[in-house]
């Protein structure tokens, strides 16, 4: 009985402590709340909107869902992460209204949808751009080819110094930092550079926190790393961009080159696929419109690059 009392006291103490400690973390909220759309909803929307698919698109859908629900509290939005392929399986089985995708729908998936007479509209919602970065004190590296990056990052890579990459570069140890294996950035980078998803050397400093990667590169002269372009934009003075040569000459990532597709192969468009049948429901239609209007403001906030306005306009025109 005594033991039981002690246990109870411990639990009570824990609950009390949990109630008291409400210290807010020191992190400063730099993000700006998106502005409400100018048009007010005429009547209250309700219903459930089901989204599933790519984990890369998830942050955008989550952000749009979160904001949309603030405006329409009776609409229930669910967002799952099944991967692009898993998302399409559910979408083409008629289980979801909207599918998040980090690549266009494949032919096999198209026929799956056709078999179940699911028709859909495709919308581009953002660009995902990856940049390769070095320390500003690095005076030698300006451009790199995809082949050189592959040589550095492939599994069992023998590259240890900068000299191993190009003979006229200094014989100094190359310090590699990159996304950890849980992140979509890792999947995407390995696929675009090494040629096979999740195939990478493992002796590098890995972090899922891109801000940590920024710090690591900013503090080490011989560092080389990769992460989302949005993080470079937030820390331009601390980092130096590498122009990537995908076969047509070196190109630096910028909003412009990511948008027009010349920054290749490290940029890709992100999509949502909306079931046409669901668009007949006012809440889904309103949500899709919201995705292409207010949603585009949120894209940058969650770390992606906005499309040009004409892309969103074109999408909206198909929703009228």
């Amino acid at each position, binding site marked *: 009985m005594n033991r039981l009392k002690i246990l109870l006291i411990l639990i009570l103490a824990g*609950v009390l402590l949990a109630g008291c400690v*409400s210290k807010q*973390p020191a992190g400063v*909220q730099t993000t700006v709340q998106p502005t409400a759309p100018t048009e007010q909803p005429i009547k209250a929307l309700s219903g459930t909107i089901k989204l599933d698919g790519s984990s890369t698109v998830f942050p955008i859908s989550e952000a749009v*869902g*979160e904001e949309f629900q603030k405006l329409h509290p009776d609409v*229930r939005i669910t967002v*799952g992460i099944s991967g692009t392929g898993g998302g399409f399986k559910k979408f083409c089985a008629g289980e979801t209204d909207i599918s998040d995708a980090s690549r266009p729908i494949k032919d096999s998936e198209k026929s799956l949808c056709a078999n179940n007479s699911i028709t859909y509209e495709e919308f581009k919602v953002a660009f995902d751009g990856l940049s390769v970065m070095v320390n500003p004190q690095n005076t030698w590296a300006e451009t790199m080819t995809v082949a050189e990056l592959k040589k550095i990052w492939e599994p069992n890579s023998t590259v240890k110094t900068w000299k191993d990459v190009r003979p006229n570069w200094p014989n100094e140890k190359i310090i590699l930092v990159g996304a950890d294996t849980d992140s979509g950035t890792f999947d995407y980078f390995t696929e675009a550079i090494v040629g096979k998803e999740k195939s990478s050397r493992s002796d590098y400093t890995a972090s899922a*926190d891109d801000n940590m990667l920024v710090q690591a590169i900013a503090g080490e002269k011989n560092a080389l790393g990769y992460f989302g372009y949005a993080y470079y934009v937030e820390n331009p003075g601390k980092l130096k961009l590498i122009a990537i040569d995908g076969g047509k000459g070196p190109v630096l990532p910028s909003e412009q080159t990511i948008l027009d597709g010349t920054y290749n192969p490290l940029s890709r468009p992100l999509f949502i696929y909306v079931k046409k049948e669901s668009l007949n429901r006012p809440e889904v239609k309103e949500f899709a419109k919201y995705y292409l209007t207010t949603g585009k403001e949120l894209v940058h906030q969650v770390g992606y690059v906005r499309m040009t306005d004409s892309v969103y306009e074109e999408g909206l025109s198909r929703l009228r």
Partner: protein
Amino acid sequence: MRKIKGLAFEYICIGATLTALFLLALLLWDAWDKGAGWLSWRFLDSFPSRFPEQAGIKSALWGSIWLMLLTALISIPLGVGAAIYLEEYADRTWLTRIIEINISNLAGVPSIVYGILGLALFVRWMMLGRSLLAGALTMALLILPIIIISSQEAIRAVPNSIREASYALGATKWQTVKFHVLPAAMPGVLTGNILALSRAMGEAAPLIMIGALTFIAFTPSSPLDPFTALPIQIFNWASRPKAEFQYLAAAGILVLLALLLAMNAAAIIIRNKYQKYIKW
């Protein structure tokens, strides 16, 4: 030499215990260190958000509570019923032995397998969708073997003399089970059930398999609603790039631990309470 061997064995055992305790303490300390600062009423009463400062576990907490209640409703009657049948009614034939061996084997099947079964059976075939009910049915399948085995053991521990005395006084089998065997076995049965339920509480794999969702900003209002649960929310936060979400994950772990501790404490209290009344 004999004594030295004995002493060495004792120290090895102490070492094993201490290692286990140390690792557990380290884990708890790490979760507490990271998560305690984020625990607050707001954390319990907010929906998930992309801003860590605004994110909370309301939908996951309610999802888990709903899930546990439904799982208990489904699995306890089935499990205890099966245990009573196997112990009190079934003849000891090769068939019952095969059934019992199968149940023991099922208790060791990896939880993800139940997830696949749940996806095919409840989500797709019974068309329950990715609902609380489908999740609860899957969880019930997962813990049924544990419930049956622990209930069987509790029932078996009731001395035969009790049953014989009951029969001697002219009681039927049903009366014997209802008035003597079950009440006597109750502490063991309930403890086993609660421990099985707390296992279900911490499971993420089968729920991910049947497609419990990641972002949900409402609480379920019926068993057919979509849902998320604490382990899934923690998993989602832990895999996010922003550092603050790691702290949220730790805070979520603390909440889950508190719930598990509370359930286990309930099991102990129930056992102690009932045991007082049973004196043979």
